[in-house]
Structure formats: C-alpha cells, structure tokens
C-alpha cells in the first residue's frame, strides 16, 4: 500500500499527537516470563513481577499518582487494556 501525501500528513499529525499524549504512560510489559512495569522512555523497569495481576495493580497506582494512563500489553505486545487517570475527574480521585 502506498499512502498519498494527504494521507501521510494526516497520519503524521495523528502519530505526533499520540506520542505527545503517551510520553508519561505506564506500561505493563511481558518479558521473559515476568511482567515489567515501565514508564515510557525510562531506561529501567520500575518494578518486575511474576504475577500479571500484581503488576497491573502496581502500575495502576503508579499511573494514578502521575495522572497518566496505564497500558497493559499481552505477551505478543498488543494492547490488552488501557485506563486513563488524567483529567479533572481522575485528579480528584473520582
């Protein structure tokens, strides 16, 4: 598939917006049989868990404190779930 210039510009704008919005996101990533909680762009994982549910619970708290988003991935790296803790309602803990 070859994109037209207009499609390319539209995709570019969407990509830049997505990157800007996602740079503080907290990710739960599968790695060598464990689950790493990683802040986007950080060199090292914040915590590593054997259990995915524990990793998600920890990541949720972390994302809540940062008023960011939690992105949970599958073992294949696809996005499984996404939770947002940004915006006025999230800031008030609602």
């Amino acid at each position, binding site marked *: 598939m070859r994109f037209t210039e207009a499609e390319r510009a539209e995709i570019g704008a*969407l990509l830049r917006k*997505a990157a800007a919005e996602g740079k503080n996101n907290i990710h739960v*990533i599968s790695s060598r049989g464990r689950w790493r909680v990683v802040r986007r762009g950080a060199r090292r994982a914040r915590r590593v868990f054997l259990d995915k549910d524990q990793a998600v619970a920890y990541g949720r708290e972390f994302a809540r404190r940062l008023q960011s988003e939690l992105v949970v991935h599958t073992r294949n*790296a696809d996005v499984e779930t996404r939770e947002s803790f940004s915006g006025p309602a999230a800031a008030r803990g609602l």
Partner: protein
Amino acid sequence: MAREADVFESSLFINCPFDGDYLPLLHSLLFVIFECGLQPRLASDEVDSGRVRVEKIRDLVRSCRYSIHDISRMEALEPGDEPRFNMPFELGLDLGCRYYGASRLRNKQCLILEKEPYRYQRVLSDISGNDIRAHGSDPETLVLEVRNWLRTVTDTILPSGSDLWNRFNYFLEELALILERLRYSERDVQALEPVEYLGYLRDWKAGLF
C-alpha cells in the same frame, strides 16, 4: 536514487508464512529489522499478479544481502492438511544463490528460525551445519534472536534487546490509537497486510511518532 549496491547491502529478505497465526511474529520481525536499520523485503510486497511467484522470490533473493527464513510452520495448518514446503524451498533457493551466484552473492548472510531447537534435524537434516535459532513462537524471543544475529553479521552498534522489545510495545500502542482514530474495526486491524503495516512502521521510523 539509491545505488543498486547500497540497496543490496541494506536489504533483508523475509521468507515466512503469512497466515493470521503467524502475524504477531511477522510484526515483531518487521519491527526489529527496521529498528536495526535494514529494509525488510517480502514476496507479498510485489502486487504484480502477472509475475510467477518463483520469479519474484528469485529476484528478491538476488537483491538482498541478508535473509531470514522461518521454517517453524513447516507443518499442516489443520490436522489432515498437507504440510507447507514453500519456506524450505525458498531457503534452498537462497542457499543455492550463495553457493553458485556471482562474487557479491557469496557474502550473503542468512538466519534460519525454528519453533523448537533441533526439530529441523528430523525434517531437514541437510541444514544441520547452519546457524539455526528457536523462537518458541514467542515474539520477544524472536526480537532478541534477530537483534543478536544482526549485531553479529552487520557489526554495528544496535539498541539492546530489552530496549527494542519495550519500543515494540510502545509502537503497537500508538499504532492501535492511530487505527482507532482512522476508524479501523477490530477485523480491519487483524487483517492488516504486511505492506500496510510497513507503511506505518516507515512513518514511525521517519520520526513522525
């Protein structure tokens, strides 16, 4: 316009299945190749249905210095189906090109991927002396194996395996957002052709993310 020799040096031919089950592995494979600075080339890149498939393969083999052959699906898709032999056939063409081709083709490098270690010895023992790595149908293992092989054969500094794996996760997150905003249904996303996926990857690599 890029010189033919430069294109040859930076091109990597991928010989793998294209079925839905393999798609997560193919996506991770395309990603790691791109991130390591090479251009992945697939037989499905070419949409000219007037050309015989084996001719397309022959031209790809001849125009790529590097190649990755995944023979992990050298089996029937469903019980009772016939096994698939396209991958080992194309691997044979690539090895033949290296042995009998002109001088620059003798410097070609290839990686053979399998599902389990040593399974190939039972079904394709002629390649026992080659460098064969098992990925266990796990995209992360595939990323690490391909990254480590490229580090050796290209002799260039590459990002670490865990950095690449993290970035692949971030890329898929952003790609999912883009496709959602472009109103792709879940079915459209699942049916994303490698060539379209490559288009997004190229934009991402070009710094648009």
